[in-house]
């Protein structure tokens, strides 16, 4: 298990190093100058040059890459060009919204998908199963931003139970924070739950057809006991993969939902930073997201090994 873990960790580091170069180069070639963007249409060229010098933009790309990387290794993400505050602080503030939102959505999605998927698989071909197939198909097809707007119209504008968006901050109390994240989390969770329920269902159906299930049944276990004790654990591998992917997606890809609910999350930070060519913020946040995705993949790899001991020796 330890060797397996170390091998995974090494490949994780290589991925990170490659990603940092790719991110830096991709952002370098994008046209646009943060100094010009900040100073607008009336600024004279020497004012723009003065600001470029102040921001350190007049240095060579290699120098800037090295100072970015070495800074990041020390935990110093630099100072945002436009906001003029430390990037690490900005990212940390945003993470306090994006991370709870992603977790909230993931918990909702899992809490819906597991029972639904298991129920459908256990009663394969029944009316319940058909209903689940139809409902999840719809859940996948509905765009989440549209669903989000419908939620706003019903629960914020008509019923007035929730705010239409925004985030009061955690200092306003845990409940207020959770309340503000509820509609966005539901909007994010619905399509994810639909996907997850379908994966759960088909994985479980596959496992239920395996020889060891028949053996277990032959030993005298009830359908129910076989399902919970043997089939479920074996069906978890594809489900874990999907959960891992979904968490990364929810963390990085919630940007549209963040816009609909004007939540100050990571996605919106990246969006604003790209428009303003706040390159240092874009680089650092994208790097962080890559790190998060790689880390989640790493954890999912470890979870595979926990669920399925055969994988521990595999290459």
């Amino acid at each position, binding site marked *: 298990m330890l060797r397996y873990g170390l091998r995974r960790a090494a490949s994780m580091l290589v991925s990170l190093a490659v990603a940092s170069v790719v991110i830096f180069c991709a952002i370098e070639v994008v*046209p*646009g*100058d*943060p100094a*010009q*963007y*900040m*100073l*607008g*249409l*009336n*600024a*004279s060229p*020497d*004012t723009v040059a*003065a*600001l470029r*010098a*102040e921001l350190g933009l007049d240095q060579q790309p290699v120098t800037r890459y090295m100072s970015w990387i070495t800074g990041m290794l020390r935990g110093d993400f630099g100072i945002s060009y*436009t*906001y*003029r*505050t430390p990037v690490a602080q*900005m990212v940390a*503030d*945003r993470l306090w919204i994006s991370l709870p939102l992603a977790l909230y959505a993931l918990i909702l999605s899992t809490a819906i998908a597991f029972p639904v998927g298991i129920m459908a698989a256990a009663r394969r071909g029944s009316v319940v199963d058909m209903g689940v197939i139809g409902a999840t198909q719809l859940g996948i097809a509905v765009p989440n931003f549209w669903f989000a*707007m419908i939620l*706003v*119209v019903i629960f*914020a*504008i008509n019923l*007035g139970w929730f*705010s*239409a*968006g*925004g*985030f009061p*901050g955690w*200092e306003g109390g845990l409940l207020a924070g959770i309340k503000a994240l509820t509609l966005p989390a539901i909007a994010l969770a619905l399509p994810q739950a639909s996907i997850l329920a379908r994966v759960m269902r088909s994985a479980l159906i596959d496992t239920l057809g395996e020889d060891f299930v028949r053996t277990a049944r032959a030993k005298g276990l009830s359908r129910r006991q076989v399902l919970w004790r043997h089939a479920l654990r074996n069906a978890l591998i594809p489900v874990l993969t999907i959960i891992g992917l979904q968490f990364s997606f929810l963390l990085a890809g919630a940007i549209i939902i963040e*816009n*609909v*609910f*004007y*939540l*100050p*999350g990571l996605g*919106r*930070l990246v969006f*604003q930073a*790209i*428009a*303003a*060519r*706040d390159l240092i913020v874009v680089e650092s946040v994208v790097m962080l997201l890559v790190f998060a995705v790689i880390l989640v993949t790493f954890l999912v790899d470890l979870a595979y090994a926990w669920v399925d001991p055969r994988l521990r020796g595999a290459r």
Partner: protein
Amino acid sequence: MVRHILSATVLAALLAGGAWAKTDITLGMQLEPPHLDPTSAAAAAIDEVVYANVYEGLTRFTSDGSVVPGLAESWEIADDGLSYTFKLRRGVLYHDGATFGADDVKFSLDRARVEDSTNAQKALFAAIDSVNVIDDATVEITLTKPNGALLFNLAWGDAIIIDESDASALETTPVGTGPFKFSNWVQGDRVELVKNPDYWGDPVALDKATFKFISDPTAAFAAMMAGDVDAFPVFPAPENLAQFEADPRFTVLVGSTEGETILSTNNKAGPFVDVRVRKAVAHAIDRQAIIDGAMFGYGTPIGSHFAPHNPAYVDLTANSTYDPELSKKLLTEAGYADGFTTTLKLPPPSYARRGGEIIAAQLRAVGIQTEISNLEWAQWLEEVFRGKDFGLTIVSHTEPMDIGIYARPDYYFQYDDAVVQAMISGLDAITDPDDRTEVLQALQERISENYVNGYLFQLAKTGVANAKIQGLWQNSPTQANDLTGVSWAE
């Protein structure tokens, strides 16, 4: 910070118990300011939070665009127009308790105009030769040449007066002399200001103001409807205004801005070098169709680069009436009987994206084909504004009184006209208002008759507010949300 939040909370709790009118307000804005120092960036969102609320200058704009005393109580102009003596208000305190004085004026103006200044409007201070402290409450500004626009220039948000000890931290902790103090900024979400109890002027009616940043137009609509924000002074979706107008809970505020929206033409590119071609473009455009189609009817047609609400404005729209036949004739005369193809590069605002499609269709009708490309702002600044790699583009020039750009041959539309250059440099020397008006009118005519750009419309300020709010600026002489006169009706 914690203390501020606490005191604000206590205040809010106290007020909630009383039966008085509301004393806090939440305003929606589409863009978040990058930081809160108007002296080192051009972003309109900065002034929309801090102008007249947190910071003040020697003079200031009022809602109708006139310039009135700010931190300067009065001034005297020397007969030769080369020196201005400002009498400063006494007893003015900064939010951190420091006393405002003549040294601060000298520091602030010198900081804005030094060689390595990063002030986005450095040109405003170009005529200043020196700033001299006469005594604690008197400052003399001497000029290298007369500048009739000095008092106007000093009213800009870029010309605010600050204390030297605060200068380096204004971006995140603004300290000014205004009626509101900075209290809290949750980046990405909101900025909060609270009443400054030590303000030198008339006390404001509001105790707290929150600026909330909502970029998505649909979300802005939902936030207004759900009552999360009390007003959206520049509402991002004109298509929703009719719905607000029909709802008694809201008022729709339609006013003027300084934004001349123009079809900028590269005067040094291909066919546009020929004035007949530019004239043909001008006559091919149906302004009203653009205003109706792209702006849902909000906007005033213009025929030159000048704001219609300015007293010196002349209506020159007759120079470029919609006349496709004339347009085709002019193109034939210029040797483009079969038309030509050019680029039309559009920045993100909806006036450009929607207007661009309509203009492309109108130009096609007279034989001019356009290749439309949609650019982000940063790309637009790089390719069009700095690179000058374009045929046509649409942009709103929102700086007040910016006709001076026509005297800059290296400006992106590359108009090089010695007559206009002479008129503009002469204008600086004129302080008599009537003489200035005369020159300004001649300038408008010259630019209009040379068809430098296609003149479309003056951008309207379209805002939505709770019907009980009074005193919001209807017009936008500078991009600001001056809250000094805002209150809730009982």
